[in-house]
């Protein structure tokens, strides 16, 4: 249990540093903004109570907001993500349910499950984020394009991270 908390804590610090020091400086065009930090919420254990999930989402979002000067924007989107996570998990649950003590990773539940899990949640989060950021409808299609392109980018980064860091544990 303590081990699990520590592991998530370090993952939080690591993802925040990657997001703030590396990915926020990725300035190719206004249409590609990767937000890998949401992987923290995606990787919390299955049995996390939904209240704790939302509070952790709030903390994650506020930390990013502090560094990006977007007070409340990422917090709102990440709380929404944390709220939707149990619902998406329920929607795409395997027939025999989730094994106790496993984590939502690519290698525990297979690529097909993981692609739909990460894909749905990334798109939901980015939708909320980009439309809240602009908060009007007169740039609707341009914002839509940003959502789609950025979601694709974040999604690819999440999949790459899964292959980089969670391969060896699966073999053991």
């Amino acid at each position: 249990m303590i081990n699990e908390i520590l592991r998530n804590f370090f993952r939080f610090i690591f993802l925040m540093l990657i997001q703030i020091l590396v990915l926020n400086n990725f300035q190719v065009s206004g249409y590609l903004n990767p937000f890998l930090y949401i992987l923290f919420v995606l990787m919390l254990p299955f049995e996390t109570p939904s209240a704790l999930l939302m509070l952790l989402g709030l903390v994650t979002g506020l930390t990013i907001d502090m560094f990006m000067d977007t007070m409340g924007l990422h917090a709102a989107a990440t709380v929404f993500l944390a709220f939707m996570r149990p619902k998406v998990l329920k929607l795409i649950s395997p027939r025999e349910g989730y094994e106790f003590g496993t984590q939502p990773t690519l290698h525990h539940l297979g690529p097909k499950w993981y692609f739909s899990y990460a894909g749905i949640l990334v798109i939901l989060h980015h939708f909320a984020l980009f439309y809240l950021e602009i908060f009007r409808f007169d740039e609707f299609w341009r914002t839509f394009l940003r959502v789609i392109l950025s979601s694709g980018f974040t999604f690819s980064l999440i999949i790459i991270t899964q292959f980089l860091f969670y391969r060896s544990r699966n073999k053991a």
Partner: protein
Amino acid sequence: MRNLFAFIWRNYEYFLFLILEVGCFFLLFQNNNFHKAAYITSANRVAGQVYQGMSQVGQYFRLKNANEALANENAMLHNMLKDSYMDLKVRDSLIKDTLLRQQYHYTSARVINNSVNRRNNYLTIDRGRLQGIKPETAVICSNGIVGIVKDVSDNFSSILCLLHKDARISVKIKHTNFFGSLVWEGGDYRYATLNDIPVNVELAKGDTIQTNAYSTLFPEGVMAGVIESFELKPGKNFYVIRVKLSTDFKNLSYVYVIDNLMKEEQQKLEMRSQND
């Protein structure tokens, strides 16, 4: 009453979700008002330290460009010095210095965090309240306008960049004096849009756009950019002008914060006239 509590308890996640989102929205919209909440911005101490450490590394890679810009600016200032003009006038009276009063005060600052790829972009600089920076003052660089100071902490300030949906800067076309507001509509960080110029004005590609004297923040005549193209939609009375910005927002390292020392006097007077 017990039923009510039972109802809330059964659906606690929905209620918690609502409460948290209302809190976030409160922060979001309060933040849109100018300089009200400076607690969770990159002007705070933790974020400021992280960004400063990061920029100290990145600074080395930009030294060459920074030197070049400084050298150019030095040359320009040398040109403006009295020493570089030949004095042809016969001195027949003393010039009293007390006739001139300083209106603008410049403070130089280093950019320690910057972005161009979001819809709403902010900068952070390494000067703050202790160095005399005040909210709602203008920020320029040697090439052109940058933005407006939004929040200040003791040693850092965060700046609302021209590349922000709420930034509207009053500018004019240099050779005609017609004025309009410069806004950024997202997308490419090198171009902004100028609206409100009526159809009877003659425009040409390459015309200079600069700040006008009506703004209480910017001094008159700060370069904003040049006209890249302009079009007139059928049935409209105003041009839509695409402006190539003279500031390279991706490559900012040193900026100047300009404090208009007579701003309050002017605003007070204008307020009084409006109230009458």
